[in-house]
């Protein structure tokens, strides 16, 4: 139950946030209070860890869906990231947006996101996991669009939601396939051997698609840099530490069940390697601090995917260390970028220089975080990167080892360069140059403690854990064990000795620093431009084209079906009858039509009359003639009734027909002829074909039914019982007003309502000035 409370607490707090923000005191304390709650929840997870609790509540049993939560090593690791970084960001967010009128809603979404994230990392049921997975996407949408009056914020929010939800759909199908194959949705009960019997490849690809969209793997990543339109606290939390890790988390969560196959290694390894390298180097094209950081986040996510692909004990350990290290330094750097923006009024590295003078605290924090970012010794980033190299070196197969080492090396070098770009270039004192405008502004706007304290905390934790990484051993062992599915005794060390990994680290760091020194040339160099064109602009353009194409298709399709012309609509309805009815008739074996008895001459006359009148009704453009022809059809029908023993029906038909003709003549005589009364060309052919076809289908159906023997049980019963039971000699009357009086009730209502309707329409007509009946359809109408 404690786990349920941990998740629910965030949602409750989210609901209370807008209420709390209605008062000035509430607004001031919202950030610290929310941060305290996050810390408390993290502490709760730590305290619960020893008991490794799990809880299963029935949710929708008919679907096999349970609300199952379970705390294991992986869940604890990510739960601590979510609550720890969350606490820092929430405090920071309160200071960052202190004068925002929508602060309450902002915190509502942020807290809801935290709760959803906790639900995701604790979920032990696939549907539970999916629900929280989608809720994080939704929270991300609302948060990116926080500055809702800016068009680009709304567009970025929409792009993020569409891409991640498309991935979510894949995850949904995957989980249904898993349920179908394994007969359970419980993650801890999934058996790899069972899944490999089933549609393993489909499940793997679908899960990977979900993870790749959510964790911004190239080429599905462009939504993440675009999401930098969000306020900085959102970038620091969702788009570096938490939400974007949901994708790799799902992969890690399912790796005991799905991992370890060649397909798994190939898919994750390839996607991860490409993303890791591309992200790090694409970052070097950017000048906006947040976008630099966003691309390196893409790179880090690629590295994490790669490590899961490599798998095994080393892959899992590296994953754990790297995920934690990245969350700490990247969120700190984002918060610093936001603070710089607050103080200097810009985040453009080209406009920033010498900030260490006016902003010494921020410079120190940034340097500490970037130390880890660059993967320099005595930082958690270093520990993680060393382990990544180890994992790559220990992977089986020479070719694979080579490719992995190159990928990790290139990614590390790019990240080291980006770290310098973020931490050195804006802050390095430049007495040789005149003070920039941004520097002067920063001197006048020193950031509040709320803006540098939280990132300082994150960076400090990263450094402490870098020096004393063995503190993490219990957590790392447990988490790595959850990833591999077998117990792991992890031992993290700050210093591995003179290993090949250290040599590779040194090389990548040197390359990185060298790249930074030459950054002004590298930034616009041809290889980077080409990389950007292939892996960045092309997918972004593909998204735009897909969206525009869908809209164009939608417009075309709608114009095709929604012509505004009633004649088209009727032709479609009858045409459907012809097609479906025709198909159905063709399927009837030995279509049995009744034997043609010789019609008496009198009936032939009626038939000829009917046909001629029907043709005449279609032919002339003179309305009066049409009315006459239609009335002949009606009277001829009356003749048919008469000759087949229904004189009462014939009488009614004649009366109705007469009345209708009189009404028609009265009404239509006064109306002008509509302009486009008759279809021409193809349309005319279509109309004739549809009319004849519909007639043929209905007639053939009727003949086929008539050929079957008819059971007149009802008719005989009514005739037999009319007098005795219903006390009436007219059988039809007894049916109408007694046996089936309920029908008559309905018909009476029809008549009453119809007369009300006529009155309504007449009142409208009398009120309105006369206007052309067949006026043009208004512009843009779909009517």
């Amino acid at each position, binding site marked *: 139950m404690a786990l349920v409370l941990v998740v629910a607490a965030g949602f409750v707090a989210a609901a209370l946030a*807008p209420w709390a923000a209605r008062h000035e005191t509430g607004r001031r304390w919202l950030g610290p209070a929310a941060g305290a709650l996050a810390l408390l929840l993290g502490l709760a997870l730590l305290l619960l860890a020893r008991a490794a609790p799990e809880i299963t509540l029935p*949710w929708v*049993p*008919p*679907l096999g869906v349970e609300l199952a939560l379970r705390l294991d090593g992986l869940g604890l690791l990510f739960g601590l990231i979510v609550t720890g970084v969350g606490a820092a960001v929430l405090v920071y967010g309160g200071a960052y947006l202190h004068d925002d009128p*929508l602060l309450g809603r902002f915190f509502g979404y942020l807290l809801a996101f935290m709760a959803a994230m906790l639900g995701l990392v604790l979920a032990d049921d696939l549907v539970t996991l999916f*629900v929280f997975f*989608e809720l994080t996407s*939704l929270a991300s949408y609302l948060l990116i669009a926080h500055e*809702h*009056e800016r*068009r680009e914020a709304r567009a970025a929010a929409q792009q993020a*939601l*569409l891409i991640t*939800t*498309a991935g979510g759909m894949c995850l949904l*199908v995957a989980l*249904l396939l898993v349920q*179908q194959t394994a007969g359970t949705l419980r993650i801890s009960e999934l058996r790899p051997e069972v899944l490999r019997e089933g549609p393993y490849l489909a499940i793997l690809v679908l899960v990977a698609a979900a993870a790749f969209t959510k964790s911004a793997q190239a080429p599905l990543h462009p939504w993440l840099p675009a999401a930098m339109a969000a306020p900085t606290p959102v970038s620091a939390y969702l788009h570096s530490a938490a939400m974007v890790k949901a994708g790799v988390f799902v992969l890690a969560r399912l790796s005991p069940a799905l991992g370890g196959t060649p397909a798994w290694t190939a898919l994750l390894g390839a996607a991860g390697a490409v993303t890791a390298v591309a992200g790090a180097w694409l970052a070097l094209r950017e000048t906006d601090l947040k976008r630099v950081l966003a691309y390196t986040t893409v790179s880090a996510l690629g590295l994490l995917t790669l490590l899961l692909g490599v798998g095994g004990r080393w892959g899992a350990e590296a994953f754990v260390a790297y995920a934690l290290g990245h969350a700490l330094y990247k969120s700190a750097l984002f918060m610093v970028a936001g603070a710089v923006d607050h103080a200097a009024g810009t985040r453009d590295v080209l406009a920033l220089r010498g900030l260490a003078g006016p902003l010494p605290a921020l410079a120190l924090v940034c340097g500490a975080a970037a130390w880890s970012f660059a993967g320099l010794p005595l930082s958690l980033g270093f520990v993680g990167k060393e382990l990544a190299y180890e994992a790559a070196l220990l992977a089986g197969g020479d070719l694979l080892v080579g490719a992995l080492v190159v990928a990790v090396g290139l990614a590390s070098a790019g990240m080291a360069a980006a770290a310098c770009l973020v931490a050195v270039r804006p802050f390095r004192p430049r007495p040789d140059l005149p003070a920039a405008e941004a520097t002067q502004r920063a001197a006048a706007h020193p950031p509040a403690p709320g803006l540098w304290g939280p990132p300082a905390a994150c960076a400090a934790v990263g450094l402490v854990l870098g020096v004393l990484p063995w503190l993490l051993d219990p957590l790392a062992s447990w988490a790595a064990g959850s990833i591999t599915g077998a117990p792991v005794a992890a031992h993290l060390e700050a210093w591995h000795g003179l290993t090949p990994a250290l040599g590779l680290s040194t090389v990548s760091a040197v390359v990185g620093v060298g790249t930074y020194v030459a950054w002004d040339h590298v930034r616009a160099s041809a290889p980077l431009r080409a990389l950007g064109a292939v892996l960045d602009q092309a997918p972004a353009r593909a998204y735009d084209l897909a969206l525009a194409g*869908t809209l164009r298709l*939608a417009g075309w*399709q*709608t114009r095709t*079906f929604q*012509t505004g012309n009633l004649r088209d*609509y*009727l032709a479609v*309805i009858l045409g459907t*009858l012809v097609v479906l009815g025709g198909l*159905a*008739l063709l399927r*009837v074996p030995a279509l049995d039509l009744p034997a043609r008895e010789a019609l008496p001459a009198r009936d032939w006359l009626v038939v000829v009359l009917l046909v001629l009148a029907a043709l005449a009704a279609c032919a002339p453009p003179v309305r009066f003639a049409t009315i006459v022809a239609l009335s002949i059809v009606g009277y001829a029908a009356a003749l048919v009734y008469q000759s087949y023993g229904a004189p009462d029906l014939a009488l009614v038909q004649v009366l109705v027909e007469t009345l209708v003709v009189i009404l028609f003549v009265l009404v239509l005589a006064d109306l002008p002829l509509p302009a486009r009364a008759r279809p021409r060309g193809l349309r005319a052919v279509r109309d004739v074909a549809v009319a004849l076809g519909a007639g043929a289908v209905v007639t053939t*159906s*009727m003949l*086929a*039914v008539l050929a*079957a023997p*008819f*059971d007149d049980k*009802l008719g005989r019963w009514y005739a037999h019982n009319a007098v005795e039971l219903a006390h009436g000699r007219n059988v039809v009357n007894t049916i109408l007003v*007694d*046996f*089936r009086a*309920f*029908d008559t009730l*309905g*018909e009476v209502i*029809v008549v009453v*309502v*119809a007369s009300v*309707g006529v009155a*309504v*329409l007449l*009142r*409208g007509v009398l009120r309105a000035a006369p*206007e052309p009946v067949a*006026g043009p359809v*208004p512009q843009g109408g*779909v*009517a």
Partner: protein
Amino acid sequence: MTDDLLLALPLLLPLAAAVTVMLTRGLPRLHGPLNVACMAALAAVGAALLARVHDGAVLVTFLGGWRAPFGIPLVADALSVTMVLVTALVAGCVCLYALVDVPPRQALVYHAVTPVLVASANGAFLTGDLFNLYVWFEVMLMSSFVLMALGGEAPQVRGTVKYMATNLVSSTLFLAGVGLLYGLTGTLNMAELAARVPALGQPALVSVVAVLFVVAFGTKAAVFPLFSWLPASYPTPPVATTALFAGLLTKVAVYALLRTFTLIFVHDVGFTHGALLWIAGLTMVTGVLGAVAQDEVRRLLSFHIVSQIGYMVMGLALLSPLALLGAIFFTIHNILAKTNLFLIGGVMARLGGSFELKRLGGFYRAQPLLAGLFLVPALALAGVPPLSGFWGKLLLARAGLEAAEYAIVAASLAVGLLTLYSMMKIWSQAVLPAAADPARPPAGPVPRAQLAAIGVLAASTLALSALAWPVCVVLGRAAEGLLAPTAYIEAVLRA
């Protein structure tokens, strides 16, 4: 209270309300509250009926005391009673909304005809006789026609003409189908039809008749390609009318499809339900593409009605217990969400002065409560978990995978994505941006009755989401009752 009366009340109550409105012309202030009270009572009746049939029991009463197949029975099973209950709920909310929305000149007719429309829907849900079903469709058509024409604006009349003409054609086909079926079997009683159709031994011939029903009900349910009348006519009348239509009318036709294509036309499913599956997929896709292309709230939502009907037909076409459960669940979810979206659209237009997306704006800042209430049905419709639409879609997707119909599952999920896109279109083009005229943000107060109506419907959607378990249990029995209708048939024929 006897079952007989309980079964008749869903018709008697609204008809009595209609008559009372007509007879008290001089007391116009009474009419709106009277209808709200009537719908509340109807909901109570629905709940009482549900308490009787939720375990799979079937209640029957024979009107006039004439036994089947000679007289007309009213039959209540879990499906029909659920529909009666949901109808009462949405009609009540629409009547609540209409307390402040109907121009005085139109009020009398609106308040008199709306309960007739509800009665006709209930008649269609409860009748056990095919011809009688036709009669209630006629009542529904006529009363919806009057409501649609009410006001008599030129675009409204144009829309009404299309509505009337296409629906009359479909009614004619319906009647022809009833006639042919009677010719084949000699009965109109649906339970007896269920027993007799297999005895004919001519499944292919019955399928020819079934086509007439597919086209007739399909037109009224607005499936592909028969839907064009709906987007042409629904956006024209006042919102209080369109919202009721959106929630009810097409769903009555879906109910009729569900009933007839589980009870009567189930002996040639390769053809009939195969065709329905195609129709379902194409309906989803064309509908949502239509919605995506629109820039006007009511038109966008109207195309969505079409799209969502596809999901319901998908459940019917797959014809498994899970699929039918999904279809029924989805129908209920959709009635609640869609009606609410139209009502919210109405309030937005009232405050913002337009239904055009680009002329609306400023709601996120000025009307946070309304914006929040919009999200509930919008996200539910888009199938965002854990809201009701998600459960419906999950049921259908699972049923589709079990039947190995992968294409329809893929289509349904892709359409879900586009649904999300189009809901986002309203949100990010009409709710989030600054007001089109910054001097006039949509800051006016929302009438309390309308806010209450929207709130009740949103709460219902949330309740359906949270109570997915018990709802699935009850509807699961309804679905099983549809697939194995022995209880239905025996209740009617052996009562």
